[in-house]
């Protein structure tokens, strides 16, 4: 078992997903949205790996491709040694027990017509995980694990607050004793005081159940709090990857710097230079030539508008895609 401790739990290798849109008439032009473009990373055991970026950068698509809720175009996704991109439906179903997902919106992620008990019991019945008589006990155990009482089992989602629903969502993800959980903006829809409760719950579960997380969020402060390593995405590509202190204390890529400077820090004594920020995220249908960020970049050079920068490994697991470091 020596290898399994060193080997990453999840390895994503050159993952690519393009969406095709047809527009225009009578001569229709086919556009390609490179939602995820050549993305590679790994998630270690008992690690929370963050994926951060603004809306439309492709971070959620990565999460769904990893679970194959969306079929990737190319690239591999390894869960330990299994390449899940090559699995048939049968095999996929069994591997999905090892990988689960928590969704952003706690309101629409639970079927409003089914009780919490029904929602949680159904997967166990369908997959015949245990004897029918035990199901209820297991579900009650699980609910207590996520900080809900056994009494909620016959209630409907509308009787709960957002935070409680998210706990149910977490309980559902834990049903199969997964090894990896994709948390897609799992706390973004919650109020600040509830956010932290849920984050701590996830943290505790990580310790208790040896879980790993692929943690997708637009909120850099939350990522810094929750994750050990993080990748910053911009228009479908990774621009920088490293440990959270590396990325947020000494950002290398100008976009990482921009994001950091734009995130308001709850302290009026800190001056933040909001005035320097220019431009909007370009449409993913027609990203700029060369480095996607160069039109908004203060340090852009000639080459930036011509060539997309290569990925540069800087050691200690840190990498960046920027001509400034080439």
């Amino acid at each position, binding site marked *: 078992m020596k290898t399994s401790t060193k080997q990453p739990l999840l390895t994503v290798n050159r993952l690519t997903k393009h969406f095709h849109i047809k527009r225009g008439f009578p001569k229709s032009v086919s556009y390609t949205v490179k939602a995820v473009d050549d993305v590679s990373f790994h998630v270690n055991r008992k690690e929370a790996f963050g994926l951060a970026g603004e809306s439309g950068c492709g971070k959620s698509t990565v999460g769904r491709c990893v679970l194959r809720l969306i079929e990737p175009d190319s690239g591999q996704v390894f869960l330990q040694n299994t390449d899940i991109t090559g699995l048939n439906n049968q095999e996929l179903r069994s591997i*999905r027990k090892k990988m689960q997902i928590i969704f952003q919106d706690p309101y629409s992620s639970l079927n409003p017509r089914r*009780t919490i008990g029904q929602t949680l019991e159904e997967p166990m019945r369908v997959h015949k995980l245990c004897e029918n008589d035990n199901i209820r006990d297991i579900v009650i155990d699980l609910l207590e694990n996520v900080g809900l009482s056994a009494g909620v089992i016959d209630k409907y989602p509308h009787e709960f607050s957002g935070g409680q629903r998210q706990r149910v969502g977490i309980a559902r993800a834990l049903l199969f004793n997964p090894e990896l959980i994709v948390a897609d903006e799992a706390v973004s829809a919650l109020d600040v005081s509830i956010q932290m409760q849920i984050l701590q719950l996830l943290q505790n579960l990580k310790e208790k159940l040896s879980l790993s997380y692929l943690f997708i969020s637009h909120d850099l402060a939350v990522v810094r709090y929750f994750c050990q390593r993080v990748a910053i995405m911009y228009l479908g590509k990774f621009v920088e990857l490293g440990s959270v202190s590396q990325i947020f204390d000494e950002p290398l890529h100008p976009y990482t710097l921009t994001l950091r400077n734009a995130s308001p820090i709850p302290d009026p004594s800190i001056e933040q230079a909001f005035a320097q920020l220019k431009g909007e995220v370009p449409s993913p249908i027609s990203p700029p030539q060369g480095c996607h960020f160069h039109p908004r970049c203060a340090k852009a050079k000639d080459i930036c508008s011509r060539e997309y920068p290569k990925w540069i490994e800087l050691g200690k697991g840190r990498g960046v895609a920027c001509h400034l470091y080439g």
Partner: protein
Amino acid sequence: MNTIARFKHFGTETYHVFNRNKTSWIGLLLLTMLVLLAVLAPVIAPYDPVEQHIIQRLEPPSSQFLLGTDYYGRDVLSRIIWGCRVSFIIGSVSVAIAMFFGTILGSMAGYKGGYFDAFVMGVMDVLMSIPTLLMGLLIVAILGPSQANLIIALALTMIPRFARIARAPTIAAKSKVYVEACQAMGFSDMRILVVHIFPNIFGELMVMGSMWMATAVRTEAALSFIGLGVNPPTATLGGMIREGFKDIMSAPWASLYPGLVILLIVFAANLLGDGLRDALDPKLRNEK
């Protein structure tokens, strides 16, 4: 325990739906009375609907014939009661058939998407570009007028409507995150569709079922009026108007009363559907 809880929930939900909207109660009550009338026709009807009282032709309403007699001396009231039966059978069976096939087609198309969706909905679009009455007319003209053919004709015109009705909420439900959660749980498509999506479109289907039943009854009456309905001497409401129309000046009861009953049936079904829709609409739910 679980089933009981579910049943109770469903029961209270339905009760609340009705309670929220008084008009749906009235519609339901009216419709139930008319259905009872139709079901109990053999018991209630004072005369045999085809029995001709030759000497008492076109008699005005009297204590002997409560709503008068028609050109052949048949009791109008008895014919109306028996006619209701035909209307309800044709209306409900055709809607049931249309709902069954339409819902399957529509929700499959919505769930699968892609070329299957495009093909099915394309066919439905084509069927829908022929107006209901003309479609009914064409089919009955070709297959010949009979109760079964009328049902087939009406069901065919309504299948595309139900397919459309089932498709839209299926697509809406498909984009709901909990359906994605089901996929992540490794549920089969069939299970997701039947267990998780179908209950969401059930309410809308009931509303439309009620309203299209109204349309089916009306269309059946129209076809009978044109002369393409169930063959005489079977009593049908539309057919009675057709026969009574000739003598409308001298004996208006022979055609006006059956018309009133058609109106009543259609109105009751519409009222029920309308009330259900209001009650099921989440936007209006908090209004009262």
